[in-house]
């Protein structure tokens, strides 16, 4: 029964990756009639020598660290909030997870309008802050563009992971809390010694997924800033797309794609190694 599924996935994933590895050693161009010529490691060499490429790698890591940290922290905070008993909790759970069901392209449409320098509603909010006297260039100034991308990413992504943490929280045995309270544990101790260990495996696998999904996230950045100004907000995926599909340089784009894949693989290997060490292996 696994065979048809494995074959199906191999056609969609393994074959293109093989193709991509091959193309990364050639000078292939999109829409080119002549067969691509073998150029060895030239594409990788030119990447290593390209300042733009290292800027993009830096962007990718920056985006991964900042956005993912914010997503995890907020997802945990929201899950802890919704794990408390109060009236209307179910409604709050539906409302807070709506961004997950909000289609990405439409989300970009409304956020880019909210970020509009002249008419965007974000200007109203930011000018409530003391010291802000003019509308910021939400998407054109590199620093602000990063802020805008991260803010929208967090809004779109964290609710789903909050749901996942919430499900893990609700599976923790309530009697553990009762027993610890009798022993005089404070709320921080309860969190540290019961809640955190209870959701640690979920947090671990979640962090891995957030990271590798973050590396391949495309639409939000590409549609919001197009990677600009210049390539200042381009992550590796966006830069790969620009190089391979817009500039038609499939060979060089292929090399970038392979670098991206290696980054995700390294993260996964580290994850597997750490969880094996901690005895919480999930894979």
């Amino acid at each position, binding site marked *: 029964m*696994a065979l048809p599924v494995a074959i199906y996935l191999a056609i969609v994933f393994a074959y293109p990756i093989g193709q991509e590895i091959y193309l990364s050693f050639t000078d292939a161009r999109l829409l080119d009639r002549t067969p691509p010529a073998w150029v060895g490691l030239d594409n990788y060499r030119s990447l290593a020598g390209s300042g733009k490429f290292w800027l993009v790698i830096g962007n990718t890591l920056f985006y991964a660290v900042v956005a993912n940290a914010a997503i995890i922290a907020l997802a945990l905070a929201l899950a802890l909030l919704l794990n408390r008993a109060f009236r209307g909790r179910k409604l709050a759970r539906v409302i807070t997870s709506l961004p997950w069901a909000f289609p990405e392209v439409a989300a970009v449409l409304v956020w880019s*309008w909210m970020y509009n320098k002249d008419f965007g509603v974000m200007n109203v909010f930011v000018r409530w802050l003391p010291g802000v006297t003019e509308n910021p260039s939400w998407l054109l100034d590199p620093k602000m563009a990063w802020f805008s991308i991260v803010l929208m990413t967090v809004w779109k992504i964290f*609710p789903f992971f909050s749901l996942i943490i919430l*499900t*893990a929280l609700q599976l923790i045995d309530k009697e553990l809390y009762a027993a610890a309270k009798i022993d005089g544990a404070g709320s921080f101790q309860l969190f540290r010694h019961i809640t955190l260990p209870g959701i640690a495996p*979920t947090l671990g696998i979640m962090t891995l997924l957030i990271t590798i999904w973050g590396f391949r996230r495309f639409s939000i950045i590409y549609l919001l800033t197009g990677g600009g100004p210049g390539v200042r907000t381009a992550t590796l995926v966006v830069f790969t797309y620009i190089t391979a599909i817009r500039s038609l340089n499939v060979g060089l784009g292929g090399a970038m*794609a392979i670098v991206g894949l290696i980054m*995700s693989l390294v993260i996964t290997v580290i994850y597997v190694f750490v969880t094996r060490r901690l005895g919480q292996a999930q894979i």
Partner: protein
Amino acid sequence: MRKSPALASQRWALVRKRAGRIALYVTVAFVCVVIVFPLYWLVINALIPGREVFQYPPAFFPRTLRLNAYQEIIQLHPILTWLKNSVIVSSGTVLLALILEIMGAYALSRHGWPGRGLLALGLLSTQMIPSAVLVIPIFIIFRQASLVDSHIGLISVDTALTVPVGIWILKGAFDTVPEEISDAALADGCTELGVLIRMLLPLSLPSLVAVAVIAFFTAWDEYVFASVFIISQSLRVFSVGISTFIGEMATPIDLIFAAASIFVIAPLIFYAIVERYLISGLSAGAVKG
């Protein structure tokens, strides 16, 4: 009259508890408002008269609301065709994905065969590959198989994108059904297919709902493949149709928001209906990993 100290401390505890409650409700309300604001803003901007869209500062609670924008956008652009195509592609993806996910999850969960761990790792590694990398090689295969510019082609790609996660979640659900029970059923002469259909699937209903929802959203949301693979206007799906409005100047912005809100409302309603299954459905997979 003097209050007794015991009574005072009791009353103080009550006040603190009340304050805690109020703080909790205020926090929850604040979080909800912040999270839901972009949705509110989308709908409001579709409902206010066009010229008020360019009013700064914008009105948070506009006085006049009307539905003209919806009428106009439906006349100007083939919104209903996009909607129909998206429904076709998303439903098709849900069906095909469910079949493949059930097969894959059953194989991973019930049969001890060599290479199981490898397949599991393979599933995870599919999650590392961005669509932008897959799109050209798959386009080339599909061109040879005449699957370009067809809904079936798009459905088969969208399915592949969602299947790895779905298998993972469903496997977790199947794992929670003890092997002894299904073995007993097999010993009583029930076929493997019988065990799957009569036992595992009903017991995993919430997880089936969860993976169906994930498949639906994946297809509804998918943009990269849909923009490259679908060439005919008449086959275009909503996500690509909507994206043509980003950065263009010809269509009035309130009309764009009217179109976008149609695109958004469908999955939101769907989500609100099935949400309660989702929590328990995800938990089986989330815990097992």
